[in-house]
C-alpha cells in the first residue's frame, strides 16, 4: 500500500525501466486514498524513434476496472475470479479462495507475472455441468489473457504520452498531487481556489467544478471566515512552509455544513511571474485522531484518579539528560511542590532519609547498571520533618548497546503497613519477654523457694533425730505434720514449674508408641489399692511431641489412682482415629465427679477433696488442659458423678506445628 506521496513516487519511478525502451508494468499498488480503485498498475510503454528513446506512455490503470471489463467481454461474470502475483498468496484481485476446484492460467504482461484463477461456485459444481464449466473456464481464461492487455490501455485512469522525461516527471508530480492521500488545495493571493485534488472532493463532498474559482472561505466554518483574510495576509507577507494555526484547533466545513477538525500545512508556490506567489494547502481530516486523543485524555485522567486513590506516584527519569518527571501524586507523597524548581535526580535523593540514602542510591545505581531490579523500601523525610515509608519499583530502558536511557517507576506509601509491622514485632517481642519472665519466675519459684523449704525439712528431721525420745508425742506429731506440709509445698512448686514449662515450642517431635508410653507410666506400686490397667489393643504409633503427651497420661492415670475410692479398680485407656488425629480416653471406675464440679476441675489450684485426705497440688488437670491445648487439642470430662469418670482428649497429628505467636 502506498502510504505517502514520496513512497508512491518512488514506486512509480522504480517501475519505470531505466532506458524507457521496454514495455513494463509495475507490481500492483494500492492507494490508501481511494481503496475502491483496488490494485493499481502503472504501465509504461516506451515510444521510440529509429531505435532511440523518445519518451513513453505511462498509464495508471485499475485492475478492478480492467478485469470487470475483460470479463464482460467474454461473458464470464458469473465465475468468481482471483488474481495472484506469482509467488505471493495474497490476491491482488478477488477473494483468497479455498474452492475445491479451479482453472488456472498464467498471464505474462509486460514482465509482470500474474496467476488468474477461475473458481466455480458450489452451485455451479452441483449442477452437474462440470465438463461444460471446465470448457467455459478454459476458454474464458484464454480469452481473458488475450483481451486484457488490449483493454488495459483503454481503461487507464490516466494515460499520457510524453515527449521527454522532464515532461514526464512534471506530469508525475502533478499526478502525485492529484493522487495524494490528503486534500490539496492551491489558492492565489486573494484566496481563490485554483486547483483541488481527488481527496479534496472526497473529504469536503464537493465536485471539482464547484470549488474552482471560489474563495477558499467556502471550506471554512462561517464563524472563522471573518478572520481568515487577515491570517492569509500575514502568511503572504512572510511566506514559508509551516503548519497553520499553531496552538489553535482548526475546523473545516463540508458541503453539507458539517464541521470536522483538521490539520493544515501551508507551502508557498512561486510562479514565473515575479512577486506572485500561490499557496498550496494540505488539509488532513483529524477527526479520528481527535477521538483517540480524547480517549487517551480520558483514560489518562482515570489512571491519574486511580493512582491517586491507590496512593501510587509515577515517575520517569531520563538518565542521559538527568531530568526527573514526577506526577502530582509523587509531589504529594514527598510533600514537595512542582514550583520548588528542582526536576533532576537530586529532587528524589535529597528527600531520602539520611540513614537510608546510601542504601537506596546503591539499589538505584545497581538497577541502572543492570545488576538488579529496582525494588526498594526506604524512608523519606517530609518538609515538616516527619518520616514516610515508601516502596519503590522501577524498570530501566536501554539502547542496543545496553546503556541505560530512562527509568520509569512507581512509589507507594507503605507507612501504615510498616508501622503496623513494627507494632506486631514489638508486641511479639514483648510477649516473648513476658514468657521468658514467667519461665524465670517459675524457675525462681521452684529453686529459690524450695531451698529454704528443704532447709526447714532437714532441720525438722534433725530435731526429731537428735531429741529422739526426749520429745513428747504431741511435739513429734507436730514435727510430722510440719514435714508433710513441707512435702505438699514442694509438690506444688514442682507442678507450678511443670505448668510453666508445658507446651513450649522446643519440644521434640519423635515417634511415640502410645501403648508403650502408657504401660511405662503406670506403676501399681505407688498405691496399696489393687488397680488394674487395661490398655486397648489398637493404640496408635504416632510422630508427635512426646513430652506433653506423656505428661497428660501421667497426670490422668495418677489422678485416677489417687482418687479411687475402692480397694480394687480398673483404669481403661483407649484411642480412636478422628479427622485431625486421634482421640484418647482415660476411664476409671472410681467415684466420678459430680456435674456441678466438672467446670472447676480444669482450673488452677482447684481440688475437690481436702488436701489432708488426698494429697494434690490442684495443678494436675490445669497442666493437662494446657498440654492438650498447646498442640491444638481439646479435653472433655464425662462423668455422672456416681460411678467412674472418663477424660477424653483430642490429639491432632496433622498440624502439630501450630504454635502460638512468640
Amino acid at each position, binding site marked *: 500500500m502506498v502510504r505517502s506521496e514520496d513512497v508512491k513516487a518512488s514506486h512509480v519511478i522504480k517501475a519505470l525501466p531505466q532506458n524507457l525502451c521496454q514495455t513494463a508494468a509495475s507490481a500492483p499498488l494500492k492507494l490508501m486514498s481511494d481503496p475502491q480503485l483496488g490494485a493499481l498498475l502503472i504501465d509504461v510503454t516506451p515510444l521510440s524513434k529509429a531505435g532511440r528513446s523518445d519518451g513513453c506512455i505511462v498509464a495508471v490503470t485499475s485492475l478492478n476496472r480492467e478485469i470487470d471489463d475483460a470479463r464482460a467481454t467474454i461473458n464470464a461474470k458469473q465465475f468468481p475470479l482471483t488474481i495472484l502475483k506469482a509467488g505471493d498468496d495474497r490476491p491482488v484481485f478477488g477473494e483468497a479462495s479455498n474452492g475445491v476446484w479451479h482453472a488456472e492460467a498464467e498471464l505474462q504482461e509486460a514482465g509482470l507475472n500474474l496467476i488468474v484463477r477461475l473458481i466455480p461456485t458450489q452451485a455451479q459444481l452441483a449442477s452437474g455441468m462440470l465438463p461444460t464449466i471446465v470448457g467455459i473456464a478454459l476458454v474464458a481464461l484464454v480469452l481473458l489473457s488475450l483481451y486484457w492487455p488490449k483493454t488495459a490501455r483503454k481503461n487507464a485512469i490516466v494515460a499520457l504520452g510524453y515527449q521527454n522525461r522532464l515532461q514526464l516527471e512534471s506530469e508525475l508530480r502533478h499526478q502525485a498531487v492529484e493522487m495524494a492521500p490528503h486534500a490539496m488545495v492551491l489558492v492565489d493571493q486573494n484566496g481563490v481556489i485554483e486547483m483541488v485534488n481527488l481527496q479534496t472532493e472526497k473529504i469536503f463532498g464537493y465536485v471539482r467544478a464547484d470549488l474552482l474559482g471560489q474563495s477558499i472561505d467556502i471550506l471554512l466554518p462561517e464563524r472563522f471566515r471573518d478572520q481568515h483574510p487577515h491570517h492569509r495576509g500575514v502568511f503572504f507577507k512572510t511566506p514559508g512552509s509551516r503548519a497553520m494555526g499553531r496552538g489553535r484547533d482548526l475546523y473545516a466545513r463540508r458541503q453539507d455544513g458539517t464541521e470536522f477538525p483538521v490539520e493544515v500545512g501551508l507551502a508557498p508556490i512561486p510562479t514565473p511571474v515575479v512577486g506572485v506567489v500561490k499557496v498550496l494547502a494540505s488539509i488532513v481530516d483529524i477527526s479520528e485522531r481527535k477521538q483517540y486523543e480524547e480517549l487517551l485524555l480520558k483514560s489518562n485522567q482515570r489512571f491519574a484518579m486511580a493512582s491517586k486513590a491507590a496512593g501510587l506516584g509515577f515517575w520517569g527519569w531520563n538518565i542521559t539528560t538527568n531530568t526527573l518527571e514526577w506526577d502530582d501524586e509523587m509531589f504529594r507523597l514527598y510533600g514537595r511542590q512542582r514550583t520548588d524548581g528542582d526536576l533532576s535526580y537530586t529532587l528524589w535523593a535529597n528527600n531520602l532519609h539520611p540513614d537510608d540514602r546510601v542504601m537506596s542510591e546503591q539499589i538505584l545505581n545497581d538497577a541502572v547498571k543492570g545488576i538488579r531490579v529496582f525494588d526498594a523500601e526506604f524512608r523519606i523525610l517530609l518538609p515538616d520533618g516527619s518520616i514516610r515509608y515508601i516502596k519503590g519499583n522501577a524498570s530501566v530502558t536501554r539502547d542496543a548497546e545496553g546503556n541505560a536511557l530512562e527509568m520509569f517507576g512507581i512509589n507507594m506509601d507503605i507507612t501504615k503497613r510498616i508501622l503496623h509491622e513494627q507494632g506486631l514485632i514489638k508486641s511479639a517481642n514483648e510477649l516473648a519477654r513476658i514468657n521468658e519472665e514467667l519461665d524465670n519466675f517459675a*524457675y525462681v519459684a521452684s529453686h529459690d523457694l524450695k*531451698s529454704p523449704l528443704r532447709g526447714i525439712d532437714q532441720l525438722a528431721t534433725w530435731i526429731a533425730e537428735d531429741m529422739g525420745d526426749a520429745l513428747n508425742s504431741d511435739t513429734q506429731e507436730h514435727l510430722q505434720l510440719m514435714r508433710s506440709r513441707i512435702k505438699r509445698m514442694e509438690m506444688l512448686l514442682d507442678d507450678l514449674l511443670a505448668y510453666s514449662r508445658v507446651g513450649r515450642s522446643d519440644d521434640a517431635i519423635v515417634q511415640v508408641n502410645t501403648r508403650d508410653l502408657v504401660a511405662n507410666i503406670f506403676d501399681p506400686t505407688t498405691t496399696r489399692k489393687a488397680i488394674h490397667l487395661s490398655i486397648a489393643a489398637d493404640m496408635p504409633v504416632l510422630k508427635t511431641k512426646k513430652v506433653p503427651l506423656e505428661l497428660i497420661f501421667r497426670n490422668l492415670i495418677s489422678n485416677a489412682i489417687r482418687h479411687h475410692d475402692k480397694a480394687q479398680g480398673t483404669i481403661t485407656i483407649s484411642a480412636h482415629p478422628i479427622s485431625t488425629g486421634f482421640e484418647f480416653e482415660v476411664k476409671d471406675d472410681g467415684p466420678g465427679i459430680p456435674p456441678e464440679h466438672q467446670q472447676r476441675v480444669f482450673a488452677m489450684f482447684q481440688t475437690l477433696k481436702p488436701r489432708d485426705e488426698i494429697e494434690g497440688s490442684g495443678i494436675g488437670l490445669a497442666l493437662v488442659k494446657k498440654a492438650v491445648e498447646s498442640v491444638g487439642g481439646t479435653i472433655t470430662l464425662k462423668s455422672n458423678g456416681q460411678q467412674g469418670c472418663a477424660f477424653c482428649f483430642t490429639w491432632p497429628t496433622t498440624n502439630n506445628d501450630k504454635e502460638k505467636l512468640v
Partner: protein
Amino acid sequence: MTAKEISYKEITILLVDDDDVDVMGVERALKKLKILNPIVRARDGIEGLALLRDSQAVKRPYLVLLDLNMPRMNGLEMLAELRKDAALSSAIVFILTTSKADEDKVKAYQQHVAGYIIKSQVGDGFLRVMEMLDHYWRVVELPIQN
C-alpha cells in the same frame, strides 16, 4: 607405694554451696557414716576457684561438690572456668543441686561432670549421697592432680 595405700589416701571434699543448712546436712551425713575426710567449704564459684588454686587450702587429691544456684558466680560458670584452667580441668565434679531443669543437667554433663545429684527428695538428707561418694573414691581411680 602399694595399691592399698593409694586407696586410703585422704581425699579432700570441696563443697561449694551458699546454703548453711545444706553444708550442715553434708557434715551430718559424713559424721553419721563415720567418714573423716576433710571438708573445705566455699560460698560461691569465685571463692571455690580461689581455694582450688591454692593447693594448701584444698589438698590433693580432691573432688568437688558443686551447687548450681549461688551468688556472684554460679555453679555452671565455675565449672566452665575449671575446664578452661589447665591445672584444674581434670577435676572430678559432682553437681549437688535442687534444680531438676533438663537444661541444667544437659549443660552440666556437657562440662563433663562425674554426676548430677538432686538434693533430696526431702527425707534422707545427704546420707545416700555421701554413702555413694564414699564408695566412689574407694573404687574409682582419681586423676593425678597437682
